[in-house]
């Protein structure tokens, strides 16, 4: 037995709002073994595909998760659209891009807050979430809801954003940009924050690659992987470079996500400037038949949507592979040898979403 402790971490734990459980073996508060256990939140969402028609499934797919809910809806409808060979009108694609990036901003700000919270910086948490409220207001203004957008439909979008609202969005993100600049100084420049992020949870590029990390987590380890470069929605027509960093520690993850915030702001500006007038949706005729894998870049990384239709309104299969699912093995790698105090920040550093992982 020696000097080792065996203690539980989660499922109910205030640092991680979501239930994930780890069996930790620690010695002097250094972790020597971490065995994760999930499933506390499994709903069996994909099973609903057998009971709901493919149009209703849009709303259910969105509820894979309330944070990147827009992305889930988007991934699902794009998959169906591919199966049904629907050409989505340009304005709808641009609108989707704007919403997706707003969603990314709200998600990253949320994450910054949670990260600050995990290393015990309460006021920074509050500040991040205060900024985030602006984005949520934009959500509500444009879609009618703070979190779950419900604006996607197969073939296009339900709502339009009129020009005055687009202008308003531009104003607001300008303010957000300023406010983010302010918190960036603390996130990246404060001594006490650096003691909790620099050199913590190192993941080399090789490890990240071999263990299959995705999203900002992988990009912080120097892997250039950003599915937006595949050009779905309107990304193909916008100008951006994936944000990467080579340090592979928690600090790099902060850095990457903060820079991605600026990137999103830039993308939204570009999209608003370029958005064409036109139809909002293309008529969807018939039922989906065939299968498709749709890969999109969620705030947390690559998500995969697989649909298989059989020509009726009920799909055969719908599967989702989510970014957190891919990021758990590398996470467990970084946990070994970490401090107990770093478990929270480290788990948070992959921006875990157990909800979509377990669906």
């Amino acid at each position, binding site marked *: *037995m020696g000097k080792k*402790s065996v203690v539980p971490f989660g499922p109910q734990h205030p640092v991680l709002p979501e239930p994930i459980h780890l069996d930790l073996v620690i010695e002097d508060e250094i972790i020597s073994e971490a065995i994760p256990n999930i499933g506390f939140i499994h709903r069996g969402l994909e099973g609903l595909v057998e009971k709901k028609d493919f149009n209703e499934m849009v709303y259910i797919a969105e509820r894979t998760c309330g944070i990147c809910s827009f992305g889930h809806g988007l991934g699902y409808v794009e998959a169906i659209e591919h199966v049904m060979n629907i050409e989505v009108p340009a304005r709808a694609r641009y609108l989707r891009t704007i919403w997706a990036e707003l969603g990314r901003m709200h998600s990253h700000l949320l994450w910054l807050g949670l990260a600050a919270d995990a290393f015990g910086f309460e006021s920074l948490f509050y500040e991040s979430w205060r900024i985030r409220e602006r984005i949520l207001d934009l959500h509500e203004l444009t879609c009618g809801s703070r979190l779950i957008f419900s604006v996607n439909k197969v073939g296009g979008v339900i709502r339009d954003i009129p020009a005055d609202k687009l202008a308003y969005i531009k104003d607001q993100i300008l303010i957000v940009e300023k406010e983010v600049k302010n918190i960036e100084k603390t996130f990246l420049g404060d001594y006490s924050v650096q003691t909790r992020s620099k050199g913590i949870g190192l993941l080399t590029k090789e490890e990240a690659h071999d263990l299959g990390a995705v999203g900002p987590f992988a990009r912080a380890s120097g892997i250039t992987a950003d599915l937006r470069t595949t050009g779905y929605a309107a990304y193909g027509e916008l100008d951006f470079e994936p944000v990467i960093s080579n340090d592979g520690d928690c600090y790099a993850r902060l850095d990457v996500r903060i820079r991605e915030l600026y990137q999103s702001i830039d993308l939204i500006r570009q999209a608003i400037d370029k958005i064409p007038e036109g139809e909002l949706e293309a008529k969807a005729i018939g039922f989906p038949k065939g299968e498709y894998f749709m890969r999109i870049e969620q705030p947390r990384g690559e998500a995969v949507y697989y649909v298989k239709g059989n020509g009726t309104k009920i799909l055969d299969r719908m599967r989702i592979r989510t970014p957190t699912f891919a990021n758990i093995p590398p996470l467990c790698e970084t946990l070994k040898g970490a401090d107990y105090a770093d478990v929270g920040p480290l788990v948070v550093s992959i921006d875990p979403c157990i909800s979509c992982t377990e669906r």
Partner: protein
Amino acid sequence: MDMWEIPFLICFPLVVSVLMFCIRINKIRNAVAYVSAVIIMLMTGVLTVHWGMNGFAPAEFYVETELVDHFILGAEILLMLVVTFLSFKYNRPWVSLLSIVPTAVIAWLELEGPELDAISHIKVDHLSILMCIIIGIIGSLIVIYAVGYMHGYQHYHTEIPDRRYYFFMILFIFLGAMFGFVLSDSLLWIDLFWETTSVCSFLLIGYTQQEEAIHNSFRALWMNLLGGCALCVGIVYFALDQGTASLSVLVEQGTGQAPASVQVAIALIAFAALTKAAQLPFSKWLLGAMVAPTPSSALLHSATMVKAGIYVLFRLAPAMSGNMTGTMISFIGGFTFLSASIMAIAQSDGKKVLAMSTISNLGLMVACAGVGRPETIWAGCFLMIFHAVSKSLLFQDIGATENSLHSRDVEEMHGLLYRLPVLALFMFIGICGMFLAPFGMLISKWAALKASVDENNIILVFFICFGSATTSFYWTKWLGKLIAHTNRPPVRDITKKNEMISLSIHAVLMLALCILFPFLSSVYVEPLLMEMFSESNQVISNNVLYILIILICFFFAVPFLAYIYEKNVKTNKKLSYMNGINTGKNDAFMGSMGAEKELVLANLYFKDICGQRKLMNPSIAITTAVIIIMMCMIIASALGGGMI
């Protein structure tokens, strides 16, 4: 005036030891040991009373001791032969040199050297009586405990040959030598008793005759013999130069403007005391001594061996005040106090923690002696008293616990209060004695702090401030282990009655000391200081001491009253918080693999920061360097001063 108790106390144990060796029937030998221990204890009392009836005045005896001197020389040569034989037997011939050389030098001094002044060979004063009481009471209690302990020990360790006759023989020789040591004033006698304790400890450590034991015993031997060499050189130099071999004369001359030989002799003797008191860089022998059966550890650590070093330093204290020797000693002591207490944090083996804490506490006493002011000696005396009692209690307790629990790892003691209540309670008292507020240890620390501020000893102030923080850390976390709630099944307590008797007496002593402590200060320790320094500064005013008494009562009363009060409050039991996945009992939770997983809670050990492996060698290096440099400086300045 004559005090027949003195030769009795020295010789009686020796006689008993012969008996021990001869009687091979366990029952009879145990009975004899028992009775002899009680006799020694009683005689210590008689000596004290006798001396007290003569007015608590220092008394000197035995000026003419021609015959005894020869006997002493003979004994010394005998010891040398034993060491030489054993070191050749175990293939470490060079160790014998450390014994042969000093013995030869001493023999030369006695046989061929100049005629020395006639001195009294035995001297009785407050300090030696205090030591006698500690040796007499604690030592005898340890013997009583050993009777029960060794029975169980041999029962469980069948691989170790049963040589209890030998073990008890050495125990008694040891006691005799210690009495001789603290009562002698003749440096030549002191030297003999010194070497005797060294050799006895060597024999005790090697008792099990296993590889590790032999290795460790030789380490103890050479370190102590090295000290013996220094002692011997110091004595001879002093004797040749000043024509006397009296300790009190040495100290007397040492205060104020001392001749070079006296300065050097004091430095050398103090150095010797460092080895005996297991100060850095010589601490390793004490750690190695843990392989011996517990009673011998208890004896070595609490009552006798290491206290011999402290005793010598206390004696020399007036001669060290404010000079370079004092600075060296107080630095080494303070440094040892801090670094050993830091290293104790990283230990989980109960006995090793005790060993480390012994070294650390001795360090504080050594530092007190090094400062050499009445205030520090006041603190030092109390440290010694409390340390002797609580350490002895703890060692015995941990031995008994090990017999029942089959482990002495602190981590295994999780919830011991529920599993082995009596032993855990004793352990609790012992540990509290080591550092909690109303118990004397802490107050002594306080006095030491105050005195070192008064003495402008900055480094010592730092050592004490930081060391006291680290000390509380490792004790508190151990205490926490004992009381933690557990549902593990109780362990059968197989502690023998003898052990229990000794343990209970210790515990009662501990509590009594704690309450009588202000009284003890004014009645005994202050006269002691008067005697030593012809001045006695009250370190802690009476006013404060009264508050302390109130505090102590309060301290015992508060938890008690709180307990009584809370007993009647209705409370519902619940499961402990485990993030929502308890399995219905508090010792397990639902693990990731879907099966129940045992909850294990370990303390912090900082093994990467303050492990022995990390800190021991640097500490040894630092202290060795300091000692070498300071010794050179002392000798150079003494001789240089003499030449100019």
